[in-house]
């Protein structure tokens, strides 16, 4: 056996071991290919074609009433709306209900949504609900001949686990790519309001948005959403929304048609080493309270500016984005226990969350520069 084939075998054995119980890991009964798993999963991944209209980018000249009148007089005023076509991916999560998940940005401004199944069947989809803050949308199609994907657990993913991305990049339906979990809990990218991405080097390209990220058992672990790239194409840094979060959001969208989030009523920022020194903070990380909003949940609980929140309900948070994410998972009127440092004193406070009354876009007040020319963009044209 050549060295090359030995390397190939060891890779496949390692890949299979991830899906096998500990006792079976020593038995060398690994599949020689991922094809059986992929074959099971492919029918659950769909292509999505969207047509719609969006506000066109009018020239700033037209903001001037004089020039606007001039163009109107000569009948050459550009249309205020422009029709567009876009493509993305989706995943069937409930065959009996015809329910599928995709990204909110895939169906933004859509007037018609057409879902194409693996066998070529096409169906019009209705929007059950969208949550732009997490970039999740739930769609429904007629429940005929559908195959739902098994739902996995993103909370048990580990960095280094093998994952497979399936979707419709550049209109190439049912494209399958392999990679690993490169990192977990990626935040602060400024792509969504509430970020907790799985990072993967499985190739994700424009059109993959809303598609499936699965483990080697063929279970859905994420919804592919965005890439960081200098070129609009894959640079090996893709991001997927964890399935635990996607399913929780979808459940609310199906039940209520919208997502209602709790709000603490604070302006927060990251703790930096310089701030630790300047403020004499005890906590080296956490969410530093810059302002407490009047009549908010935090004020009622007794939180003060310059307090550092280190753990809501015992879940350690290392930065402001992590706290924002944790609070966003909770509902209005829910009580949350906040472990804080107030000066050098560690204490716990109970806060009854208010309701977030508007779409929250993540503010990156202390934004770090990205490598030159690198952009974070959604994996959709």
């Amino acid at each position, binding site marked *: 056996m050549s060295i090359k084939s030995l390397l190939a075998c060891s890779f496949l054995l390692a890949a299979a071991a991830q899906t096998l119980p500990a006792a079976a890991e020593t038995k060398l009964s690994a599949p020689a290919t991922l094809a059986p798993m992929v074959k099971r999963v492919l029918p659950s991944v769909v292509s999505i074609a969207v047509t719609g209209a969006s506000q066109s980018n009018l020239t700033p000249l037209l903001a001037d009433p004089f020039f606007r009148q001039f163009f109107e007089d000569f009948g050459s005023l550009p249309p205020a709306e422009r029709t567009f076509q876009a493509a993305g991916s989706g995943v069937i999560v409930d065959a009996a209900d015809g329910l599928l998940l995709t990204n909110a940005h895939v169906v933004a401004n859509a007037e018609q949504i057409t879902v194409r199944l693996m066998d070529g069947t096409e169906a019009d989809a209705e929007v059950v609900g969208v949550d732009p803050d997490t970039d999740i949308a739930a769609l429904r199609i007629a429940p005929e001949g559908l195959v739902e994907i098994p739902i996995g657990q993103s909370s048990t993913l580990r960095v280094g686990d093998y994952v497979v991305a399936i979707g419709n990049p550049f209109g190439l339906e049912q494209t399958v790519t392999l990679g690993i979990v490169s990192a977990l809990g990626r935040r602060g990218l400024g792509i969504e309001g509430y970020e907790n991405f799985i990072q993967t080097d499985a190739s994700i390209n424009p059109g993959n948005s809303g598609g499936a990220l699965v483990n080697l058992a063929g279970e859905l672990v994420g919804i592919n959403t965005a890439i960081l790239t200098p070129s609009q194409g894959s640079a090996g840094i893709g991001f997927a929304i964890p399935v635990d979060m996607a399913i929780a959001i979808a459940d609310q969208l199906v039940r209520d048609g919208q997502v209602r989030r709790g709000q603490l009523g604070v302006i927060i920022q990251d703790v930096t080493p310089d701030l630790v020194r*300047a403020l004499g903070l005890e906590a080296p990380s956490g969410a530093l309270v*810059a302002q407490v909003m009047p009549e908010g949940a935090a004020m009622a609980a007794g939180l003060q500016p310059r307090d550092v929140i280190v753990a809501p309900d015992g879940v350690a948070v290392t930065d402001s984005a992590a706290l924002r994410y944790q609070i966003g998972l909770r509902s209005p009127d829910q009580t949350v226990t906040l472990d804080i440092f107030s000066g050098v004193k560690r204490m716990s406070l109970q806060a009854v969350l208010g309701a977030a009354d508007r779409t929250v876009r993540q503010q990156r007040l202390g934004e770090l520069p990205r490598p030159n020319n690198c952009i974070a963009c959604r994996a959709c044209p």
Partner: protein
Amino acid sequence: MVMGVTPGSGAARSGLMVGDRIVAVENTQVNRINQLRAIISGAPPDTTVLIELERQGTPFLLALP
């Protein structure tokens, strides 16, 4: 209001940005540029100065080494 930040300076490294509105330094409200100069020049070397500012209308704390 911060009108410019010298590239490579301590302020730039700390994240001070053009457009930031400085409200207080070392817990003292500043209304005039001379107040700001006096407080910063009076700070001992190798200490960190706490600055309260508004960035895009939102309160923000910054520490300048």
